[in-house]
Structure formats: structure tokens, C-alpha cells
């Protein structure tokens, strides 16, 4: 292995080279000083500056970074998919010893699939919606002149079986929209490895997948690695990377900040940014500590209310499906949210957790059961009476942008959220105070949310939720769309606000790490039912229900201290 160690001394490099030259064959992929630029009006804009690594048989190199780091562009430039405008330069770019810098698009088409497989993030847009997945995979074989019709059909079934698709005969005849997210992603992997390419590039292959499905996809990639394939894994998720990677490149703003063996990068990171990234990963080990390095207030304020602030008993919600049948989205769900605490509801897509959030907010009519807020009837009273009480419970959504009126500035959004009885003279000072509480400056007042970054928008959403001085805030996947370092800042902000304002949180998330970091009690939901509930230590260390056990086992284990 001769990954270019940016910070190793010359002597160390020499030693490594000698060892490698004797014991290893030439790498399958050799990248030296790869640079990618896109021209814009001001001249060429460099988005990747100087990426170098080698990839050998059975090895996995991971490129880690947040959005805009240039990791995906790097991956695409390795398979000639950067687009016509991009200027790709490199001192060396070799696949199986062959220079790929001068390949024409036609030559690339011949290589892709056969020698390099490319797995994209979103299988729904990457697969042809009008074709059965079996036809799609078989097409990949046919284009490269593989076998005849009958042998290709057999091969499709063999591939689907290999990537862990149950009932391959049935699945091969189905279109992408008829398959679940996990099956789609596996079908995409099957088409990428149809011709047994010995280099596979996976760009965020498990993002947007449920954690149990993610575990299955990672198993497939691991199996491919064991069969001798070389894998390039692009991801923002250190836990995913930790499971597969032998070598890791950490990128930010197009620059490689650090690279080296996985154990060293994760266990003893040299660059400040890598340390920030690692520290930002939430888990049950980080509970009560800061993820972004800010000081959390020690002083814990008295809760804004006492006792049980939000009480749900036997909640039932049914929906009508298009074919007139009724499905139960939430079935007999009960919980208590204690003042000053965080109740985490965790579940995969379709588990009914977001419906539960809407029921708790009384934004959706119940089909059974009751919600009480601060000991008073909440779901049982008419909306007209509820309006006065609504200021006691507020909400933060996953996508803050769509929850803001696009015509309104931050100032108007926050003024609008103040209680009606706020004195006129006190309104603007209160808005400034709210902005300061969420760590935004006054210059944000005149901005439209569209011109703010994702983290800043979520801060505005939190400020709006704080404006009526609520006792309870419902956070529905509130940090799920954020980059990991931004997520860490928002999670720290939430903890700080909880301590200083005595807030209670109902925190909904699919992310077990976030849930275990934040929650005082956890509710695990599956198919509309609560399968297990209890303190996080019981749920994550001693799960009793088989589904909880499966969930917990699916979390890619990420303990930076345990790696080194």
C-alpha cells in the first residue's frame, strides 16, 4: 500500500516503498495529484485540488467530507463522469496501469461497468423507472456483449441472489417503484457489479437508507471486498467509513486535509478538522458532553413546568389508502414526557413516528386515545380553544426552509411568532434576544431564509419555536438534513437551551446515534407500534425486543478510542 502520506517524513516513505515494491503487485487504481476545476465567469474554479492515492486488490479507500468538500466530484472524475465543462488534470491517473486521462467518452463507456462499477446514492433516480430491474441489469451485460439472452437471465438471478435480494425471480420482473429502498439499492449494486468489475466506486451508497437496510448494504460491500474487489467509498458518515475502509482521505473545500490508514485517521487524527469531525459524531457515549467544542451551561434551570408536561394514552391514527382500505399508522401509542427531559422516539421510515409527532401537536385528528398538555385536555378540545394553548408547545421540522413563508424575512418570521400579548415596544428587543439565544447576529434580521445556510435556517426555526416561550418543543428529524459538524452545533444548542430555559423535548429521529446522545427516555417504534421503551442505557446496551436488538446491532460501531 502506497497511499501518499502527506505528513510522513521522507525516510518513512522510502521504507514503505521498499516494502511495497517487494511484496505487492501494482495497484489497480493510481491517482496522483488529481485536480478538477469548473469554469465560471471569473475563470476556472478549482473544486478538487491535489488528491493522491493508490488502490490495491481487496482494499477499500474511503473519501470522507461534508457537503461541498469535493468528494463526489473526485469519485466522478475517476470514472470520467465529471461532465463536459470540467477540467480534469492529474500527474497520474491510471486504471490497471492504463492512463485514463486521455480516454474518449466512448472508451469510457466501454470501461465503465466492465472494469469500474459505479454505485450512486439514490437508486430511485439512477434506475430507469419504466424498466424491470432484471432488464436493467441484463442491459448492462448486453451492452458489453456478455453471453446470450438465456445466460444473461441466469446471471441476473445469480447477481440478485449475491447482493442479498430475496425472491430474485420475482424481484427481477418488478420496476424500481415497486421495490423498497433497500431492495432498490441492492438492485443498483447488482447492476454495478454485473460484469465483476474489480474496482467499485460507491458514492454515499447508504445515505437515505434505514439503518437496518444500511447494515445489509454494507454487508454486501464487505463481501465484495472479501472476494477481491477494490472499493472506493464516498461518505459523510464516519461510522459507515469506519466499518469498511482500510485507508481514509479527509476532504474539505476540495483539499485533502489528512490521509492515512483507517486506524490512524480515526484513532489518532492529526488534523484539527478530522478531530472536529470525529468529536461531532453523536452516540450514547457522548451524552451530556459537547459535540462541537462549545461550553454547555452547567447550571440547569428549573423546568418551565412541573411533572408530566405531555401525556399520550393509547393514540390511534388510521389512514385511508388509495384503494379504500384503512391502514393503522399509529396503534395504541402511549408515553409521558417529563418536565425538563427529552423523550426520543426512534424508528425507521413508515414506523409512524412523524404521525405521532403530529398527533402530539394536535395537528392531526386522533382516531382513538388522548393527549394531555401540562395536565390539561389537549386533543379532546376544539381547535378554537386549543389556539390559546398552542404557545405552550412548538415545533421544529426537518426542512426549515419549507416551514417559512418565502416572502418573509427572518425579522417578520420571528415577530409573527411572538405571543399576541407582547407589548409593541418589547417585540423587536425580544426578537434580537431570540436571535442571540440561537447564536445568530442581528444582521440576520433582514435576510430571507433562502439566503441562509442549512444550519442558520435551523437556528431561525429554533428561535421561532422559542418565541412563544413554550414548555415543550417537538423536534421532528430536526437535525437529519444537516452536515455532521453543523448537526453537532445544533445538538449542542438544543442541549444548552434545554438547560437554560428548562425545556422539554419530544425528539423524533431515525438516527440512533442522535437519539442516544440526547434522550433521557427512548421509545422504539415499528409499524405504528411501540416495541420497547425505557432509559437509553437499557435500550442501547440491553435491548430486549428482537427488533430493538436488530436495530442496535445495525448501528455501525464507531468508537474512535476503540479503534486505535
Amino acid at each position: 500500500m502506497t497511499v501518499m502520506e502527506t505528513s510522513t517524513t521522507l525516510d518513512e516513505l522510502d521504507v514503505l516503498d521498499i516494502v511495497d515494491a517487494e511484496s505487492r503487485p501494482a495497484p489497480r487504481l493510481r491517482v496522483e495529484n488529481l485536480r478538477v476545476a469548473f469554469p465560471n465567469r471569473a475563470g476556472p474554479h478549482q473544486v478538487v485540488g491535489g488528491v493522491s492515492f493508490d488502490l490495491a486488490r481487496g482494499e477499500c479507500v474511503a473519501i470522507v467530507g461534508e457537503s461541498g468538500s469535493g468528494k463526489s466530484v473526485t469519485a466522478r472524475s475517476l470514472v470520467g463522469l465529471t461532465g463536459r465543462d470540467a477540467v480534469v488534470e492529474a500527474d497520474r491517473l491510471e486504471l490497471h496501469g492504463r492512463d485514463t486521462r486521455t480516454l474518449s467518452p466512448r472508451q469510457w463507456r466501454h470501461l465503465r461497468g466492465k472494469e469500474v462499477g459505479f454505485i450512486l446514492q439514490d437508486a430511485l433516480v439512477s434506475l430507469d423507472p419504466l424498466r424491470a430491474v432484471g432488464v436493467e441489469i441484463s442491459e448492462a451485460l448486453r451492452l458489453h456483449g456478455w453471453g446470450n439472452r438465456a445466460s444473461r437471465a441466469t446471471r441476473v438471478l445469480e447477481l440478485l441472489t449475491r447482493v442479498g435480494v430475496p425472491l430474485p425471480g420475482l424481484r427481477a420482473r418488478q420496476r424500481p417503484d415497486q421495490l423498497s429502498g433497500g431492495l432498490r439499492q441492492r438492485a443498483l449494486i447488482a447492476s454495478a457489479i454485473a460484469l465483476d468489475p474489480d474496482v467499485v466506486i460507491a458514492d454515499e451508497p447508504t445515505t437515505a437508507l434505514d439503518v437496518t437496510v444500511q447494515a445489509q448494504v454494507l454487508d454486501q460491500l464487505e463481501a465484495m471486498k472479501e472476494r477481491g474487489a477494490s472499493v472506493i467509498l464516498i461518505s459523510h458518515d464516519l461510522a459507515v467509513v469506519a466499518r469498511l475502509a482500510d485507508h481514509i482521505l479527509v476532504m474539505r473545500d476540495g483539499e485533502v486535509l489528512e490521509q492515512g490508514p483507517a486506524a490512524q485517521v480515526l484513532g489518532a487524527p492529526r488534523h484539527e478538522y478530522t478531530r472536529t469531525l470525529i468529536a461531532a459524531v453523536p452516540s450514547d457515549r457522548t451524552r451530556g458532553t459537547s459535540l462541537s467544542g462549545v461550553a454547555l451551561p452547567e447550571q440547569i434551570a428549573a423546568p418551565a413546568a412541573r411533572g408530566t408536561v405531555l401525556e399520550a394514552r393509547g393514540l390511534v391514527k388510521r389512514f385511508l389508502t388509495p384503494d379504500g382500505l384503512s391502514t393503522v399508522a399509529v396503534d395504541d401509542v402511549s408515553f409521558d414526557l417529563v418536565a425538563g427531559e427529552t423523550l426520543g422516539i426512534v424508528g425507521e421510515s413508515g414506523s409512524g413516528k412523524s404521525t405521532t409527532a403530529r398527533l402530539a401537536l394536535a395537528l392531526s385528528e386522533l382516531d382513538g386515545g388522548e393527549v394531555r398538555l401540562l395536565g390539561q385536555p389537549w386533543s379532546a378540545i376544539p381547535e378554537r380553544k386549543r389556539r390559546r394553548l398552542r404557545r405552550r408547545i412548538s415545533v421544529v421540522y426537518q426542512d426549515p426552509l419549507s416551514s417559512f413563508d418565502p416572502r418573509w424575512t427572518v425579522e417578520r418570521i420571528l415577530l409573527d411568532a411572538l405571543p399576541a400579548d407582547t407589548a409593541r415596544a418589547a417585540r423587536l428587543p425580544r426578537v434580537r434576544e431570540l436571535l442571540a439565544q440561537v447564536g445568530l447576529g442581528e444582521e440576520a434580521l433582514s435576510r430571507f431564509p433562502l439566503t441562509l445556510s442549512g444550519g442558520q435556517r435551523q437556528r431561525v426555526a429554533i428561535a421561532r419555536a422559542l418565541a412563544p416561550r413554550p414548555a415543550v418543543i417537538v423536534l421532528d428529524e430536526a437535525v437529519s438534513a444537516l452536515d455532521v459538524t453543523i448537526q453537532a452545533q445544533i445538538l449542542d444548542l438544543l442541549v444548552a437551551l434545554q438547560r437554560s430555559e428548562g425545556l422539554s423535548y419530544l425528539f423524533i429521529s431515525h438516527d440512533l446515534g442522535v437519539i442516544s446522545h440526547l434522550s433521557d427516555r427512548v421509545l422504539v417504534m415499528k409499524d405504528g407500534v411501540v416495541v420497547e421503551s425505557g432509559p437509553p442505557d437499557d435500550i442501547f446496551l440491553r435491548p430486549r425486543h428482537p427488533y430493538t436488538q436488530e436495530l442496535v446491532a445495525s448501528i455501525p460501531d464507531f468508537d474512535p478510542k476503540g479503534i486505535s
Partner: protein
Amino acid sequence: MTALRPSVIDAPRVALTKRPWSLYLSIGLLAFLAVAAVAPNLLAPYGPTAIDYDSALQPPSFLHLFGTDESGRDLYSRVIHGTSQSLLIGIGAAFVSLVLAVILGALAALSVKPVAILVDRSVEILFAFPALLLALLLIAITGPSAWTQVFAVGLGTAPGYARMVRGQILAAKNSGYVEAATALGHSRGRILHEHILPNALRPLVAVFALSIGQSIVWASGLSFLGLGVAPPSPEWGALLDAGRAYVTQASWLLLFPGLVIVALALSATSIGRHLQFYLEKGRRT
């Protein structure tokens, strides 16, 4: 360890997109026509009905830019004098159409279910008739005049816009910001007034401009068929109708009014599109 640090907000990016020449041309033409509508005598060298039999059916020349008609009237002057009427019919029809559309669309999107279904079905039935047929029906009942033309064209084009308004209001009603406002405890009236109507109706400004162009074409079509303003009037559709008889000898009588109608429709459409783009730019994600 730092205290909760304010995150830095960069200065808003000012987009200085180049305005294409088509927009300037459109604005120029509309400005010219606006002057023609308000003060036609500034632009027209002759009166609209100044008859001069000696120069009947003259082809275009420097003396008569668009040529003359069978009575020797200067066509260019007649087009200029007809502008106010044509524009008023177009704007009036677009206005009638949008008012109807907003009423019907809002009823379909916001009222209680039985009413909404009734309105929905009625609009769909209207939608099933070609717009021209609806217009003809109205004119057949009331007889041709400038006013019936306005209402006929307005009624004919309203169903399409009503569907659009309904969709806009429904989208706003189901949006995240309306749910957020509900969660803040705002009343239905306040949400309707502050969020749903402004967001749903803002795009209509652009649609209005688009619809003026369309209405002028429809109205001219009706005049051409003899179902609008009658010939001695210099209204553009009426000019077309009058020129029809001479199409083989004096094709300019059809050509120039036709070109002016096309140019105005294109300008209104072009401005409408730019307006639409400008208004929607702020809400792209």
C-alpha cells in the same frame, strides 16, 4: 472551548443577470402603444377617418407607412387610433378572466366539501367547451359590442386560470409554513390572509400579463368574425375584418394590423415570462 458562537452570515449575493434584448424591445413596444392609446394624435399623421379617395389602396410608402385602404384612409393612423380600444378590450378581458378565476379557484380550494365539489365540476364542464365556443355563445345571446367582447373573452379563458388558482391555493394551504403558523396558534382567517392568499396569488401578476396578450388575440379573432366591434371603427380585429375583402389586391391591409397584434401579444407574453421568472426566483430552493 468557546462560548456559543454566533455563526457568521455572509453578505447576500446580488444576482446581476443580464436582461435580454427581447425584454427591452417588448417594453419599448408597449410604451409606444401606451402613448398611442392615450394620445393617438401625437403619433398618427392623419385622422382615423380622414377619407381621401385619390389615394385609395396605396401600398406602403413614406407618406403612408402601412399603406391606405379602399377609402384612402391611412392604415398606420387607423392602427394607432385603434390601439386604445384594442388594449382596453384585451386588458378588460384579462381582468374579467382573472377575477372569475380567483373567485372560482378560491371557492374550489377553500370552501366546504359539497360547495367545493360543485364548483370543481362546474369549472370542469366549462373547461370541456372550447374557449371560443363559450365566447360565441355569450355573443349570440347579447349581440356583438365591445363590452360583450370583453366578457365573452374573459369568460372563455377563465376556466383554465381557475384550475391554476385552485392548484396554487391548495399548494399553499398544504405547505409547511401554513402548518407552522397553525402550530403557532394563529387563526384560520389570519393564516388565509397572511400566507395562503399572498403566496397563491402572487404568480397571477405574471399570468395577468400573459393573459392580456392572449385576450387581444381572442378579441381580434371575434372582431374578425364580425362578432365584436364593427368595421368603421379602427379596432385591430375590425381592421383585419375590413382588410379581408382586399386580400388579393392590397395584402398590407391584413398584414400590418396582423403584425401589430402578433407583436403586442409577443411583448405581453415576454414581459409576463420575465415577471414570472423574477417573482419565482425568490422561492426556488
